């Protein structure tokens, strides 16, 4: 039993050692952002191939393992190679996120309203049979809208406090 534990421990150290060597090699290879982006594309292809294989073999475990390994690998490489987000890229991401919210929130909110309106409005056709799903879909959309607004409100509050706002004004 004791021997087994020692063997397992040694195997874990070996795994960590191999991972560290891989990351060091990546750190040496990835000296700039361009190479990091190239590696990201390669890893994406690799993960896509694993997911395709998992779909063919009908194995959820393989898909989850492939995706999580790819994600962990890229996070570690990014941390080790000290790749920072470019400020123009961050600005583009901010604007894209803002536009996504501005389009998605009203769209899904209005869709929820329109789907719930017939069944809540007392129209019998929509309260039974094949139209019954509209009410359920409307409820899902409504809760999704609320969740989206809640996440936005919380993150807005957090960043507002982080960047000097938040009720301490004289």
């Amino acid at each position, binding site marked *: 039993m004791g021997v087994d534990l020692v063997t397992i421990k040694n195997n874990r150290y070996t795994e960590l050692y191999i991972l560290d060597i891989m990351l060091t090699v990546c750190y040496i290879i990835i000296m700039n*952002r361009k190479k990091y982006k190239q590696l990201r594309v390669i890893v994406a292809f690799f993960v896509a191939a694993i997911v395709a294989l998992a779909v063919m073999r009908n194995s959820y475990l393989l898909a989850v393992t492939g995706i999580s390994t790819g994600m962990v690998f890229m996070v570690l490489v990014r941390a080790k190679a000290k790749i920072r987000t*470019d*400020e*123009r*890229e961050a*600005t583009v991401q901010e604007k894209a996120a803002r536009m996504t919210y501005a389009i998605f929130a009203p769209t899904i909110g209005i869709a929820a309203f329109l789907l719930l309106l017939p069944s809540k409005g007392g129209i019998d056709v929509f309260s039974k049979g094949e139209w019954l799903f509209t009410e359920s879909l409307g409820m899902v959309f409504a809760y999704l809208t609320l969740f989206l607004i809640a996440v936005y409100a919380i993150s807005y509050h957090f960043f507002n406090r982080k960047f000097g706002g938040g009720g301490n004004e004289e």
Partner: protein
Amino acid sequence: MHNLTQEQLADKIGVSRQTVIAIESDKYLPSLGLAFKMARLFKVKVENIFIENEN
């Protein structure tokens, strides 16, 4: 004057080459931090690199 390529400048100030191109072509206004970094690199004042434009 400094004989730097866009790639070299981008590496020195820690941004991508696309950002350097965008700044050069007046499509992106850099942050104060980046502007000061560039000024320090070229050993000039910020206002010598970036000219205030009302439009």
